[in-house]
């Protein structure tokens, strides 16, 4: 590593362009939003940056606190389901034969490379009232009804399609669908590093698979599990598209409220305050994770 003072021209030539871009097109736009969050609307497009905290106070009103709470709950539930689905998958990939492993990883990753909007749309087409899930369920219902008639019982009432879309269930399902790869990859990375002889020892000494996983694998892969949880939780918390397209009127998440302030409601200062609150929450989680890894490295 060289000190920049000894190589000022080279340093300037290398650093100037990326630093200028970062400041000009990232830091300054964010700073503008930050300043707006302390302002108020005067007139239609004019914003007076008066240093008021009124926008933050308004964000603490029960209505918005409830939306914040709901976003956290939805993101947490999504993360939990991803963990439950993803953990056995990561475990299977870890212990799969060498030649299968890259293909299994690719199979998990490939949907991740597909456009988010298209994946959401694909899910909508199968879940809608006359989509495939409801059609298959209806078919099974009719068969069951026919079976009951056959043995001399009264037929089942007519099949009512399940409301699978435009509610909270759909939002969680959509978020799980989109975020599953985020969970599997860090889990796999953590499990792959494990000393397999410890697991074998535990199994040899008579512990069952479940007990081995909860008492040996989970504590050893703890850091990886936590990073998987954070990597899944953070984007789920700020999700915009899934609740917008798959949610109902009561499944608005924080990102949808922010969008509304900047488009329809035209209350930029309040939207700015909300988006900074979301950012602070994100940063806190990431800082927590960074702190943990640093501690873990120091211990080593």
């Amino acid at each position, binding site marked *: 590593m*060289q*000190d*920049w003072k000894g190589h000022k021209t*080279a*340093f300037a030539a*290398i*650093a100037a*362009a*990326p630093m200028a*871009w*970062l400041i000009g097109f*990232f830091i300054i*736009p*964010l700073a*503008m*939003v930050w300043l*707006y969050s302390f302002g108020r609307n005067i007139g239609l497009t004019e914003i007076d940056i008066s240093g008021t905290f009124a926008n933050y106070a308004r964000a603490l009103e029960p209505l918005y606190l409830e939306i914040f709470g709901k976003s956290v709950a939805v993101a947490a539930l999504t993360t939990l389901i991803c963990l439950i*689905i993803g953990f*056995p*998958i990561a475990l*299977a990939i870890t*212990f*799969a*034969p060498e030649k*299968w492993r890259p293909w*299994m990883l690719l*199979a998990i990753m*490939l*949907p991740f490379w597909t*456009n*988010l*909007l*298209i*994946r*959401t*749309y694909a*899910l*909508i*087409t*199968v879940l809608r009232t006359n*989509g495939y899930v409801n*059609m298959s369920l209806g078919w099974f219902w009719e068969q069951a009804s026919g079976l009951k008639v056959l043995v001399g019982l009264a037929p089942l009432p007519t099949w009512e399609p399940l409301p699978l879309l435009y509610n909270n269930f759909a939002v969680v399902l959509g978020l799980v*669908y989109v975020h*599953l790869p985020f969970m599997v990859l860090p889990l796999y990375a953590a499990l792959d590093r494990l000393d397999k002889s410890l697991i074998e020892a535990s*199994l040899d000494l008579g512990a069952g698979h479940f007990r081995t996983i909860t008492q040996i694998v989970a504590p050893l892969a703890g850091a990886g599990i936590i990073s998987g949880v954070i990597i899944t939780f*953070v984007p789920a918390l*700020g999700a*915009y*598209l899934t609740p917008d397209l798959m949610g109902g009127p009561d499944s608005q998440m924080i990102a949808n409220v*922010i*969008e509304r302030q*900047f488009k329809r409601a035209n209350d*930029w200062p309040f*939207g700015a305050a909300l*988006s*900074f609150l*979301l*950012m602070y929450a*994100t940063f806190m989680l*990431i800082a927590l994770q960074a702190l943990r890894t640093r501690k873990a490295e120091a211990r080593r």
Partner: protein
Amino acid sequence: MSLLNRSPIAPLEYTRRLWMRAWIGATLFFLYAPLLVLIVFSFNDSKRNIVWRGFTFKYYGKVFENDTLVAALGNSLTIAFLATLVSIVLGTLAAVMLWRFRFPAKAGIEGALSLPIVVPEICMGVAMLVFFARLDWPSDLVWPLNLSAITIAHITFCFPFVTMVVRARLASFNKEQEEAARDLGASEWQTFRDVLLPHMKPGIIAGALLAFTLSLDDFVITFFTSGPNTITFPVKVYSMVRFSVTPEVNAASALLILLTIILTTVALKLQDFTKATA
């Protein structure tokens, strides 16, 4: 093969256990079935899109007759191309800067460079909206200059990914190679061009493909920076999806999935190629 293999299942051979296979199968079904249904039904000769009525290409024809959709696809590809080009330059420079120099507030700058990766998309979209509105950025310029706002926003969130990938690649660089080149009389620029750059090449290629896909995929940030005349493909598909579920949307989506598969294959092939020549 494994079906014929009748040796007892070892304790850790989870992939040979029935419940695990069922679990993996169910998960893959959950991940792929909706996408397969979407692709298959883009060939269905029925407007209602639920019962199979025969094979047709007519919705693909309709996609190409739909001028706004074609224009949107053109815009998306142009933006992705330009954003990738600038991102690899900026991203590589930033990676070299972090790898090579010690300078004041380095940890802070390093953190700031990874911010665009972690900031929630909605916050970044809002920031771009405020920024370009405040600057009165002209939106009625001739093509492709009218795409400048979107392209700038895309570069901002793409180049840190390039930095990340290239920096990981630089960790394996042997500094003695650089010193040898300098000893043998190469100038700073020659060393960079002939020694460091070839070493970084696989990283740059991987970063470029990542940037291209990210740019092509982005909806949220583009949604906040696009004007009425600068629609990208995801934004157009979004407005179509809001409106209704039609075979035409299926066909357009299937085309984009195909493009993604081609890009991923090229990426994997290129990586093999660079590995073989490295």
